[in-house]
């Protein structure tokens, strides 16, 4: 029974079906339970949370990653699967401590002042949730002081900063300085991303890491987190 539900969770993550109403890639899947319903069912039937995470969610994201690598899956497929895992993690959140599962970490995501572009940041957020992180997206066009305030209040392990414009990326440097002045810089690792940003720029302004794209961003954080 438990193996059966885990298998179904896995299959539905691969199909990117969050709820019963979602279509999958295969035909005629709408109407059958999705990841939300299946995870709830798994919890109700007393299946261990770590088993749900390891065998149901993590394993299926690996399969999705492979399908993406071979070209069978597109970005929207990958995101649908990651969203399904993110939703599952939300449901499992209250049960983590009780089951002795250590959360992977909390990440704050923001697009800097003057920049309204948020597709990139949203994609990275979804992928990070799919990798099992708790992600808080605080929005776009944010003042430096608001980002500092959020870091103080939320106490994230990582801060992800995004910018699409060369004219706005300069405020990344201001944010890092402001965090230093507030005594928060050593409490959070800062990863930056966006089209104009580079590895070199990250080093220059004193960020901890740089993600060339969503997948790279996730792997940078995974490495910092000691998961790779």
């Amino acid at each position, binding site marked *: 029974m438990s193996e059966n539900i885990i298998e179904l969770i896995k299959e539905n993550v691969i199909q990117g079906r969050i709820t019963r109403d*979602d*279509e999958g890639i295969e035909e005629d899947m709408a109407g059958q339970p999705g990841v939300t319903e299946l995870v709830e069912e798994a919890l109700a039937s007393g299946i261990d949370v770590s088993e749900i995470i390891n065998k149901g969610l993590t394993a299926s994201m690996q399969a999705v990653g492979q399908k993406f690598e071979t070209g069978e899956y597109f*970005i*929207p497929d990958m995101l649908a699967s990651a969203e399904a895992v993110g939703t599952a993690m939300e449901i499992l959140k209250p049960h983590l401590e009780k089951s002795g599962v250590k959360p992977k970490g909390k990440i704050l995501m923001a697009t800097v002042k003057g920049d*309204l572009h948020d597709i990139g940041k*949203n994609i990275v957020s979804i992928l990070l949730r799919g990798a099992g992180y708790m992600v808080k997206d605080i929005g776009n066009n944010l003042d430096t002081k608001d980002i500092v305030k959020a870091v103080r209040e939320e106490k994230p392990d990582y801060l992800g900063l995004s910018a699409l414009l060369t004219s706005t990326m300069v405020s990344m440097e201001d944010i890092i300085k402001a965090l230093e002045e507030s005594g928060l810089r050593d409490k959070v690792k800062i990863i930056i991303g966006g089209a104009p940003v580079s590895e070199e720029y990250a080093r220059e302004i004193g960020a901890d890491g740089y993600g060339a794209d969503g997948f790279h961003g996730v792997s940078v954080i995974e490495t910092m987190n000691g998961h790779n």
Partner: protein
Amino acid sequence: MIRKGIEGGSYKPLTPEDISRINDTVLSTIEEIGCQVNSDTALDAFKRVGASIDSKKRRVRLPREKVLELISKAPSEVTLCGRDEKYDIHLGGARVYTGTGGTALYIYEPTTGERRQATLTDLKDISRLVDKLDNIHLLLLPTYPNELPVEQVDVNRFFAGLDNTSKHIMGGVYTIDGMCEVMRMAEMVAGSPEALRQRPIISIITCVISPFIIDEKYGDMIVAAAESGLPVVCPSEPLCGATSPVTLAGNLVVQTVDSLMGVILAQAVNPGTPAIFGSVATSTDLRDYKYIAGSVEMGLLNAAGAQMAQFYKLPYYATGGMTDSKTLDAQSGYESAITNLLCALSGSNFIHDSAGLMEFAMTVCYEKYVIDNEILGMVMRAVEGIKVNDETIAYDLMKEIGPGGNFVTAKHTRRFMRKEHYQPGLSDRNSREKWDEKGSHATWEVAAKKVKSILESPASSLPDEIRKRVLSEIKSIVK
């Protein structure tokens, strides 16, 4: 997702007035100029349906009503069956399918840049390749096995096809005896003579010689093919300025007359014969009168042929997709793409020669089959056009997403992305860095890898028992 049999016809080089004028001239030509018939069996068949015959000149003329009456006996829909039912194709209307073509004598090898003679092994390997290329819907036997004596060519060619792909096999024949042997073999493969008529897994290509000649041998073949009840293609190949007027309209008249004479002859022999109206019309190189296979005029002529076929309600065999290039260069790509696209958009039922051929149709190239398969995938997507309905216009979705939002994670995106967007199987869309990392390969090099992997995979051979029976009963098949 494989696109085949999609309704084309959005491209119409001829106006309804043009079609009516061409038809009128075609009927006058058959009524007044007539056609020279060098085959006795064909001449007899025309006599039986009341044609006026000038015996001395062997000239056959038919009144226009008679012509239209005989055309109306030909089925407007013809199904060409695959050995595997999933490959059945239903010619008629403006539905579009594609296939290979022939008959080439040489193989071009891009790795060495050399051209060599085609052998029976090549024919088998190309059949295996075509079996796995999804955008090529039937196999028209593409090469001539140079090492065989002519009496053995027909049966060996069809066996090479039948034993290496479960798609439909169409092919030209070189001798009447050979054709009969091919039919006997196909009956064994189908299970019985009746089974073959019910599900014709092979079809025969004949020809009418432009302008206005039914040849002795090919006339006999049209008669024999019609008697067999198998689908028969009656194409004609007028060349602008050589065997037809240099003008495209004049060429269209000659092509229509000649192909219709074949269709009519088949109906005269055996009313109801599945006869396919066919065009191989093209232009010539006016500097030396060479046959040309990649001209834009060829695309126009064969697209217009589709309109004429639709006018007569006959299934249509068009010619497109070739190139005159000697190598896999830009010319090879654009000539193949443009002629295929024009034929397909006009609703040509079956585009023959649509893959693999180059150098005035004398040469085929393994890698080019893979490249043309990609062209055809794009062409078929173009035929499909743009669907406009509540779901595709997506107003509700736009309302939900609003200004500045994005459609990356919308369910609508996943629901339609695969259906609406052709996904290349060959074209490179990597960034320069990624492309460099993968070896900076040109298209043909990637195609060569695909050829290799397909030829290393299992073939769609004939079932063992049938294969044994065919080989034991037909001795002329080279094992």
